[in-house]
């Protein structure tokens, strides 16, 4: 052997292989997401009928009230989008919705929802107390589909 300078393609030829193209890579980067999504639900006490109707407009004012009660003027300036609210669809029995908030304001909004409690009139001089329950949160809207604990429980006890 006199030649000491062999390249990969030459080696391949010597071994009878055809030259293979260099593998291609694709790179996906996930950085801190701009938005954060929360799935929320309104609970009533007592949970019996009649339940008050809460439209998405009423929801916006409730969220705004919770922010200003907990965090004042600066809090009420937080940008919140309501992406879905079941109260706009008259057949739904539960009030569940999806809201979106900028990532940096997540803790502020979430803690103001946690601390919020209010009483709503239902007519007939009855009133019900409400609170917010956060069913899930994710940086991706898709992440709100299900909750792994709930899903596992359903899987194990069908």
């Amino acid at each position: 052997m006199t030649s000491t300078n062999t390249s990969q393609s030459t080696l391949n030829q010597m071994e009878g292989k055809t030259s293979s193209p260099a593998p291609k890579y694709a790179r996906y980067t996930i950085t801190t997401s701009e938005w954060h999504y929360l799935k929320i639900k309104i609970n009533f006490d007592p949970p019996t009928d009649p339940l008050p109707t809460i439209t998405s407009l009423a929801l916006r004012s409730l969220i705004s009230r919770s922010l200003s009660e907990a965090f004042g003027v600066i809090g009420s300036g937080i940008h919140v989008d309501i992406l879905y609210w079941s109260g706009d669809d008259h057949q739904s029995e539960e009030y569940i919705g999806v809201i979106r908030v900028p990532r940096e304001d997540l803790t502020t909004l979430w803690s103001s929802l946690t601390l919020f409690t209010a009483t709503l009139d239902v007519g007939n001089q009855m009133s019900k107390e409400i609170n917010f329950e956060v069913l899930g949160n994710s940086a991706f809207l898709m992440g709100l589909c299900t909750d792994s604990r709930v899903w596992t429980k359903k899987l194990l006890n069908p």
Partner: protein
Amino acid sequence: MFYDLNLPYRAQHDLVNQDDLRTRVDMLIKFGYQVVAYNHVVTGKVSSNETNVIDISDKKKTNIEQLTRLTYILEDISQNHGLTPTNNALATYDILAVRPTNEKTFQNACNTLEIDIISLEMGSRLPFYLKHSIVGLAIERGIFFEISYAPAIRDSTSRRYLISNAQNLVRVSRGKNIIITSEAQRAMELRGPYDIVNLGTIMGMNQAIAKECITTNCRSVVIHAATRRNTHKAVVSFDPITSLKSNELWKVGKDKKSLPTGKSKKAKRMRPNTDDDDEDESESSQLQNMDM
């Protein structure tokens, strides 16, 4: 495992403005908590004949672990002589907590009292300052400080004080040895575990520490309480012979047929201090390591 170590318990006749215990426990189960402690609050002198007023027997069917807790509201250090390891009556409760109301009782609680939790009245201005030195002593002894979140939900003035007192406590204790509990009198005041973690973030802890406050730290409290009750100076614990399973009876040189009926018997192996005053003579004793 999520813990809620403060669910106020009142005897059946005193249910004004408080939900049924069962309703609140159902709500906790729904949120995913695994352990709850029913809290009985007492003021006045620590007596030596406390009986456990909390009745768990009819709640056996729930799938949540239930513990009992006693909280003493301390007003005067002369009343606290009962809070020592020799007071066997207090052992009927799983967890022991105190709520000091002035600086002297707070100092006493952090220094000398044999307790698991120091609970502070967070909904109003604290009557004493929290100092690094005193709080540090309690932390070294393995005592935990409790922050209850339901007063913030009930009342908006309490909310301000709670956030400010909680931030102060987190600063002074550097985030260590804190547990977050509910103290919820109604089911609507309860919140899910991750909501509580988020509230902890507002109080000055980061997410990991806040989550520990409802998981690992609470577990430490329960274990600390068990150590305090069941062991002697955290080294030796006694079990009666009747608690042995039949395949363990070789440990006392007996077989199934000849189980002793409560006679005292010297263990065959070496054991420390035989001159303990609080050793119960009617139980047979057996050296056992702390098995937690």
